[in-house]
């Protein structure tokens, strides 16, 4: 690789734009520029010097800011497309066929196309993840490519720069050295007051402050990289659990994917704002909207099975704690968290019937059937019995004469019973369902008349374990630090040189907020009577200025 040897004698790596020693422009392009591009201190951006192999080409691709910005924009547009119609996660259907049908039914042809193109599960799609992955690579490669040379150049920057460097700074002035020897001294004093680090060498002064802010972008990129890394880790087994548990009041259930933990739901509570009590302040809102929930919670007891117990063994469960799970207040244990997400009110719990003589309507007695654990025989009244021959919690019709149930949930309970009374000792068979009673073996004397139901609520809980959270938090924190570091602080440098022809040359540079730099430079100029400087880059031309433009 050919190095570039500057006039001053310093050897610069190929691709360097400004000499690392004196600051002279090394390329024709730089020579022709009125103002120098100071973004990377003129150092050779790694990727631009090595262009040979395929690997280098790929590297350069990812190092480019243009590509990075393009990736950002593509991701932005893709994400927007995912909001046109609800994503599959928010659609009330679970199986693939149901989901496809939903999009077609509710959103018509557009919905059908949206679904078929995979746009309904956009954020989980392989191509969207690939885009994010590419952005991640871009973050890493682009940062490495720039931060290393930048750090090196800023570290070994010299105090005295060549005039060709100074002349091409945005703020530059050259003129009479009115105070002679004391000009640098006075400048130094004032600059130190303004909290600059000042170095004076052989009639050249370099004042610098806020260099740390240059690292801001690289710190925030590191934060983003760590964040993305955390997101990636979720794919590994054991790092992430996401389960749903529907549990009824009074039930004890094993908590899915947790090692031996059980949950008992004691009660589900739904509270709403009471209009009479809240009338003064919230009355109007409640009247307009109707019921507004004020709180819902599930009161639970958390159990753990003993060390050596096996799944299925529910003896000897140890009670760990008793808590109320509310929104914003999940139950936490051993890295797991249980959230109050959803609920279903008034699921049937038990049904009460009366055994009645159909003709006389005389009741012989009552019975209450527990819909989760019904019994085989019920003693009714003094000397009658009802035998439960069959129980169908979610009755869905008859098939070949057999009653069917479509789920184990008591949504539509039906019973095949045999009623044995003193009058009918052989027993009568009846099929009792909601709003229908059938007598398959001939007409009966007695029937079960429905009296009442007891209901209970069901809580929908989400079980979550996320071992990646702390990594994500670290990434987020680092990002904030980096972004504050880079955006709220600036890197300012002021050079003041005694030139060979006995004059004074002044130049200044900052990476952002020229306004403030100028104010500080003005302050120093006043004290040290520095020559007037010019802002060589203005967005207006002189013509505009004459048009009566105000300075603020």
């Amino acid at each position, binding site marked *: *690789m050919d190095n570039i040897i500057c006039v001053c004698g310093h050897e610069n790596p190929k691709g360097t734009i400004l000499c690392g020693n004196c600051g002279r422009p090394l390329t024709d392009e730089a020579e022709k520029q009125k103002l120098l591009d100071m973004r990377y201190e003129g150092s050779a951006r*790694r990727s631009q010097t*090595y262009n040979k*192999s395929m*690997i*280098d080409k*790929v*590297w350069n691709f*990812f190092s480019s800011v243009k590509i990075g910005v393009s990736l950002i924009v593509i991701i932005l547009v893709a994400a927007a497309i995912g909001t046109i119609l609800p994503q599959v996660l928010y659609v009330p259907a679970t199986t693939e066929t149901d989901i496809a049908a939903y999009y077609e039914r509710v959103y018509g042809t557009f919905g059908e196309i949206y679904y078929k193109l995979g746009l309904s599960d956009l954020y*989980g799609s*392989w191509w969207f*993840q*690939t885009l994010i*992955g590419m952005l*991640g*690579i871009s973050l*890493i*490669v682009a940062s*490495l490519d720039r931060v290393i040379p930048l750090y090196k150049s800023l570290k070994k920057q010299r105090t005295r720069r060549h005039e060709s460097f100074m002349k091409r700074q945005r703020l530059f002035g050259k003129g009479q050295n009115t105070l002679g020897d004391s000009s640098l001294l006075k400048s130094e004093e004032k600059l130190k007051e303004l909290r600059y680090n000042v170095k004076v060498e052989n009639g050249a002064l370099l004042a610098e402050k806020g260099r740390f802010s240059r690292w801001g972008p690289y710190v925030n990129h590191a934060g983003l990289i760590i964040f993305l890394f955390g997101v*990636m880790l979720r*794919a*590994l*087994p054991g790092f992430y659990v996401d389960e749903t548990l529907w549990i009824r009041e009074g039930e*004890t*259930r*094993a908590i*899915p*994917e947790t090692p031996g933990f*059980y949950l008992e739901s004691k009660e589900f509570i739904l509270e709403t704002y009471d209009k009479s009590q809240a009338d003064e302040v919230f009355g109007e809102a409640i009247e307009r909207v109707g019921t507004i929930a004020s709180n819902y919670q599930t009161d639970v007891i958390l159990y753990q099975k003993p060390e050596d117990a*096996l*799944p*299925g*063994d*529910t003896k000897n469960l140890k009670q760990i704690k008793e808590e109320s799970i509310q929104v914003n207040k999940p139950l936490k244990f051993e890295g797991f968290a249980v959230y109050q997400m959803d609920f279903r009110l008034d699921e049937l719990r038990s049904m009460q019937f009366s055994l009645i003589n159909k003709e006389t309507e005389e009741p012989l007695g009552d019975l209450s059937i527990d819909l*989760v*654990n*019904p*019994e*085989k025989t019920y003693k009714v009244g003094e000397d009658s019995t009802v035998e*439960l*021959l*069959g*129980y169908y*919690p*979610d009755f869905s019709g008859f098939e070949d004469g057999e009653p069917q*149930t*479509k*789920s*184990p949930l008591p949504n539509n309970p039906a019973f095949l019973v045999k009623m044995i009374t003193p009058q009918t000792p052989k027993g009568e068979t009846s099929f009792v369902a909601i709003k229908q009673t059938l007598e398959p073996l001939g007409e009966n004397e007695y029937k079960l008349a429905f009296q009442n139901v007891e209901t209970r609520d069901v809580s929908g809980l989400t079980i979550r374990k996320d071992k990646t959270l702390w990594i994500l938090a670290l990434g987020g924190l680092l990002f904030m630090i980096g972004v504050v570091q880079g955006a709220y602080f600036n890197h300012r440098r002021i050079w003041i040189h005694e030139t060979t022809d006995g004059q004074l040359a002044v130049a200044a540079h900052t990476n952002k907020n020229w306004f403030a730099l100028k104010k500080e430079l003005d302050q120093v100029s006043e004290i040290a009577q520095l020559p007037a400087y010019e802002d060589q880059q203005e967005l207006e031309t002189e013509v505009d200025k004459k048009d009566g433009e105000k300075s603020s």
Partner: protein
Amino acid sequence: MAQMKQKRLLIRTVILAILILAIVYTIYTNATKERSAILGVGDEAPDFTLVDLNGEEHQLSDYKGQGVFLNFWGTWCKPCTKEMPAMDRQYEVYKEQGVQILAVNIAQSNLEVQNFADQYGLNFPIVMDRTKSVMHAYNIDPLPTTLLINPDGKIERIITGEMTEQDIASFMEQIKPE
């Protein structure tokens, strides 16, 4: 200089390779996550203990040395109930040859399950998983799911969906002890 160039090329290649591999792995895992169960063929079948309709306890490890036909089911599940008579018939054939059936019912009432067993005259042990803890331990999703456990306690096969009597026979043949 050439050395440095070589070094840089090597570093870049390594970095890019790691990044691309990591991303591809992540995307691949996410895509196949839904389909892979946590338990696979060759894994040790998790031990458990459940009570059957007669109140007797059955612990899986008690059956070591025998092949276990572990079937998860419910009365509302049509394919489950359809295959049960066939299971019962094959059970008669293979139980002398050292194959045991454990039919794990998912959280239903004793009444429903007993009625069903009586109706079809089922002879194999039906155990009740009240709290669904065994179902979770085996990560069962669709019903019916049957696991073939060999006499050493390892899972030989996982079958989801209805089985024909022929299937059942050949499965039992597969796990009977030598």
